[in-house]
């Protein structure tokens, strides 16, 4: 449900960003296009103005030529002549320029053809007038002017030019309008686009803030849960520790108090045994006396001589006492074991730097006799050093090595190997042998108190491995076994390289 909401939110975010990007792209492209178009339109507007001014310039030159021609006719002053010649010389280039400028406008091209024809006629008239004046025939020149006036050449030029100007003005209006529209369009596009981007940004910010708020809330909840969890764990740990301490105390007191009656049972059983001995000796003496009438050398003193039913009675008596005594002895061993275990459980560990190799070599030397008897060889490979409790380590290794020697295969020379390595702050030790092995179904059982596995042909209480595992756990480590029947065993112990009080749990 929450994951679904998350996915949806992420989808919307992406969609928003994509939309924003798209809008920006469109606006950019549109703006570039519209700006270009506006520039183009402005160029055309400028072009129109230029054309207009060129027409006016042409017209001006024509007027100037005309007026200077008249001046020359009236005064024959060379000034007028040169002025006229300059004007005439300027007319044709101006006309050519204009022609070039409007070459793309068919309507104007038609106009300019007419204008050009009219100007050419007028120029021809000018040249003829000038020739007449220079030849000293001003009358003919005047007549020509009159003729020109009658032919309306000047008016035609004027009209044509005006028509062109009008046309250009129309174009100017048109193009100005175009340009304005382009600019308006560009501006509104930018405006709308910016608005859209701002809107998208706001939606995006809103979404981000909302998700941030959701995240903050989740974080707060998580923090609360963590604090809560820690408190719960602390509480449980304290409970467990208390329970454990209580069990330890209980076991200690119980095993201790069980010992007292056991002393009595054992003591008075022994007393009874002695008493029984005395009674049966007396019976033996009496029967011999009564049978022979006198004390007939009943063997050495202290030796009981009985026959028949009496002998049977005495044997039954001894057997019963024997069972009681072995049971008491066994019970005593069990109680002692529990006492030792609880004592170990109560002992405070003293972490110290330990040269593991030295420690194990010392253990091996104390077990050298047993090893020689079992024809076992013990190989030590390089071992990592630890900071841990020396006594605990000694007990762990001596139990395991002792077991390895004890449960070898009869007739096969033993080979016991002790390996070590480190991994992530832990030292891992492996004690492997080629002994009789342990059936996998017994792998759990062998670590239980008073439980043993396999052929019961060796003395033992079933305490060693339970003790070792309890120690390893208290040292903050773990232990496991891998073994097959008749294929040797490997016990693996993982211990923290540096033990301290906080490792305990």
């Amino acid at each position, binding site marked *: 449900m929450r994951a679904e909401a998350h996915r949806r939110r992420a989808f919307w975010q992406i969609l928003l960003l994509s939309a924003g990007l798209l809008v920006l792209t469109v606006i950019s492209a549109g703006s570039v296009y519209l700006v270009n178009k506006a520039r183009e339109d402005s160029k055309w507007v400028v072009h129109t103005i230029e054309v207009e001014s060129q027409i006016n310039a042409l017209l001006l030159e024509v007027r100037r030529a005309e007026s200077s021609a008249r001046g020359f006719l009236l005064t024959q002053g060379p000034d007028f002549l040169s002025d006229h010649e300059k004007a005439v010389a300027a007319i044709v280039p101006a006309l050519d320029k204009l022609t070039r400028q409007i070459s793309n406008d068919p309507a104007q091209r038609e106009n300019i053809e007419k204008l050009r024809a009219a100007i050419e006629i007028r120029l021809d008239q000018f040249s003829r007038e000038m020739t007449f004046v220079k030849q000293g025939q001003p009358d003919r020149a005047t007549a020509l002017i009159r003729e020109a006036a009658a032919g309306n050449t000047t008016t035609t030029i004027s009209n044509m030019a005006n028509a062109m100007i009008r046309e250009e003005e129309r174009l100017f209006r048109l193009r100005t309008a175009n340009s304005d529209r382009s600019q308006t369009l560009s501006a509104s596009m930018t405006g709308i686009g910016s608005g859209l981007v701002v809107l998208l940004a706001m939606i995006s910010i809103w979404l981000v803030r909302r998700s941030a708020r959701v995240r903050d809330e989740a974080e707060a909840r998580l923090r609360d849960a963590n604090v809560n969890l820690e408190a719960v764990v602390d509480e449980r740990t304290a409970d467990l520790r208390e329970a454990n301490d209580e069990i330890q105390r209980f076991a200690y007191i119980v095993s*201790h*108090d069980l*010992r*007292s*009656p*056991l*002393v*009595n049972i*054992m*003591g*008075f*059983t*022994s*007393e009874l045994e002695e008493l029984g001995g005395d009674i049966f000796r007396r019976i033996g003496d009496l029967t011999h006396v009564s049978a022979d009438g006198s004390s007939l050398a009943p063997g050495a003193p202290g030796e009981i001589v009985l026959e028949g039913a009496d002998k049977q009675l005495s044997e039954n008596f001894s057997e019963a006492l024997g069972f009681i005594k072995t049971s*008491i*002895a066994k019970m*005593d061993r069990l109680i002692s074991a529990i006492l030792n275990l609880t*004592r170990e459980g109560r002992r405070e560990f003293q972490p110290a730097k330990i040269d593991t190799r030295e420690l194990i070599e010392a253990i091996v030397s104390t077990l050298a006799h047993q090893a020689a008897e079992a024809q076992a060889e013990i190989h030590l490979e390089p071992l990592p050093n630890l900071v841990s409790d020396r006594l605990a380590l000694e007990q762990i290794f001596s139990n395991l090595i002792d077991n390895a020697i004890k449960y070898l295969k009869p007739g096969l020379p033993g080979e016991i190997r002790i390996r070590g390595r480190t991994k992530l702050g832990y030292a891992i030790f492996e004690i492997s042998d080629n002994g009789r092995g342990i059936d996998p179904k017994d792998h759990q059982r062998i670590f239980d108190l008073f439980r043993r596995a396999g052929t019961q042909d060796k003395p033992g209480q079933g305490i060693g491995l339970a003790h070792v595992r309890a120690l390893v756990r208290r040292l903050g480590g773990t232990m496991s076994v891998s073994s097959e029947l008749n294929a040797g065993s490997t016990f693996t112990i993982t211990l923290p390289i540096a033990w301290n009080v906080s490792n305990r749990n």
Partner: protein
Amino acid sequence: MTQPVTIIMIEDDEGHARLIERNIRRSGVNNEIVAFATGSDAMRHLFGADGSGLVQKGNALLILLDLNLPDMIGIDILKQIKENKYLKASPVVVLTTTDDSQEIKRCYELGCNVYITKPVNYENFANAIRQLGLFFSVIQVPPAAT
């Protein structure tokens, strides 16, 4: 020794008391043995009604003490004996089932003279008590007054 030594046995378990007495006797010790099954009875006897210990002035005592008593902590009795000016010279033998090293250490620190753990194995038990009896027959005990 002008006066025969009296053995004060403070032992809550009657069976134990019987076994101890029997084995002490077997070792040939014939001194009077006064047994107490509770700590308070023993205290009353040792320290008297006023609790000063004056009643034992001049008596030669040897105290056999079990630490696990129903009404008192044996160690407290030991402490009081060793703090009393009339009793502190009397040898105290702690004879108990506890074999905790801390406990043993504490007893010796408080002035106990001998600490013996009762072995469950009767042969060992009998042997220990008999040897203790032999020990009793040779040691010198000062009278309780100074």
